[in-house]
């Protein structure tokens, strides 16, 4: 799934992927999409919780080898 922007959070442990995701989304426009690639196994639950709490939409989440990929639409 293509997105307006991509954040490479591979190699970062919680909570860094979430903090970087939040920072990146803050600089984006409402309705734009962000693809996040992470390797932290906790990132699936974290990203789901983050979207629930912030109102952003988690459009897709997938595991690709050791990578977890998420696409988020900014609220």
């Amino acid at each position, binding site marked *: 799934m293509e997105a307006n922007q991509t954040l490479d959070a591979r190699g970062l*442990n919680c*909570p*860094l992927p979430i903090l970087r995701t939040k920072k990146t989304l803050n600089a984006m426009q409402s309705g734009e999409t962000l693809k996040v690639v992470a390797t932290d196994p906790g990132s699936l639950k974290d990203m789901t919780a983050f979207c629930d709490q912030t109102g952003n939409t988690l459009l897709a989440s997938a595991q690709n080898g050791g990578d977890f990929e998420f696409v988020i639409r900014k609220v």
Partner: protein
Amino acid sequence: MNAEPDTRSRILATAREMFHGRSYADVGIQEICEGARVQKGSFYHFFPSKRDLALAVIDDMADDWAHGFVAEAFDQNLPPVERLDYMVDAAYYWQKAAKDIEGRMPGCLFGNLALEISTRDDVMRAKLNAVFERAKDKFRLTLDEAVATGAMAPMNTEDTATAMLAFLEGIILLAKTRNDPDVILRLGPAIKTLRIELAQ
């Protein structure tokens, strides 16, 4: 390849996880060695005692924090007040992720150790106090900047920074006691409202 740094790192990482998830007193050198897959002789080559190991664990974790999520949260490019929110987010997501994996919220390693050993070991207490001082300074520099740019009204930034650190440590302790990281999410944002006024 030099195996020494790897062995030392393994001991540190294992001890850090065990001290954090349980306590300093509860964890013995034997099980640290087993967890890190090292011989006792090798352990003592790096750390003369469990106490020396604990002091190194504090340094190691403080260094990780300083270059990891603390640096990320107190990012100079963020407006000062937003940095406080990022620090609360960091505490929440970190504790939540640990609970998701272990089933138990570990709390703050430094807070846990401070509660456990402050009455028993002045060297460890002083080291933990230095970690808290550095954390407080991050808050104070943020508040100084917020006041200088007019984002916050003048206040006693030194004492307010200390109060903010105490608040954050306090809600992490309460959340740990309830085994519920949502306490941090619910109460954390109020950190921005704390104020110690300047003396009249």
